[in-house]
């Protein structure tokens, strides 16, 4: 009788303790292993680079057109000022 109780208690303990052990976190990393290439999941996404490149082309062209327009306005303004001064001389 006591042996049967002991076996039931042991079986219950094993069955109940297994999930408890299974829920333990995995063992910590004990060493670092070097590799030559970056893992696939960590690789740089290409889309932001592609979009940045295209956007830069637009921005550079627009900034240059704006700089020409600004210089042209300055020249025209100087010409107007000079033209106003001319008849008085």
């Amino acid at each position: 009788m006591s042996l049967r109780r002991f076996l039931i208690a042991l079986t219950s303990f094993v069955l109940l303790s297994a999930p408890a052990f299974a829920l333990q976190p995995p063992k910590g990393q004990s060493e670092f292993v070097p590799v030559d290439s970056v893992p696939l999941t960590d690789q740089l996404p290409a889309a932001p680079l592609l979009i940045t490149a295209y956007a830069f082309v637009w921005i550079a062209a627009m900034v240059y057109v704006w700089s020409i327009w600004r210089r042209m306005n300055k020249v025209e303004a100087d010409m107007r000022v000079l033209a106003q001064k001319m008849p008085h001389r």
Partner: protein
Amino acid sequence: MRKVFGPFCALTGLMFACAPFLIARAPYESTMGLVQKIFYFHVPSWFAMFTAIGICGVASLVHLFRTSPRADRISEAAAEIAVVFGLMGLVTGPLWGRKAWGVWWQWDAKLTIALLLEMTFISSVLVRKYGGPGSDKLASAVGIFGLAVVPFVYEAVNIWRTIHPLTSVVPNLPATMGLPFWFSVAAYMMLLALLLMLRVNLGKRQAALDELYLVYED
């Protein structure tokens, strides 16, 4: 000139707006994947820069030997535009290289000479701005020197061992990649023509202003 400027400007804008759709439909390159699509506006930037340098070099030669103010204005405009397109190439290239090679920049022959070419034309622009009297002739000489450097930039990948793709990739492009590429090249050439027209016109107005100042001072 004014009549064609508006439609020309609209067409250039339209081509730049359509280019991404054609590029998106182009097939992926087998080893580089999506990032290789930077090629469709990186290489045309250099083509446009080389064309601008060609224009600058020829105009500089004319100005040096015949002292033509018109050629000088074209040379000045083309040098400035070469800097803009060179900057586009120098920015889009590292964005491509970061993914394809794992580094932003590599001090190999192709990239280093391309950087020197850009610096040559920046120096030409600076000489004109701060060089004082006679700087137009000096800038013209720099422009001719820059033109002489272009073949080295183009052929560097065939002469020296570099990680940059070879020049043979362009003539060997399959039709599905060739169409968006040459469309982009056409768009860039139109942008170059447009910028050149604007910049030459600015030079013309600046020359008129200088003449007005001289008349005023007399």
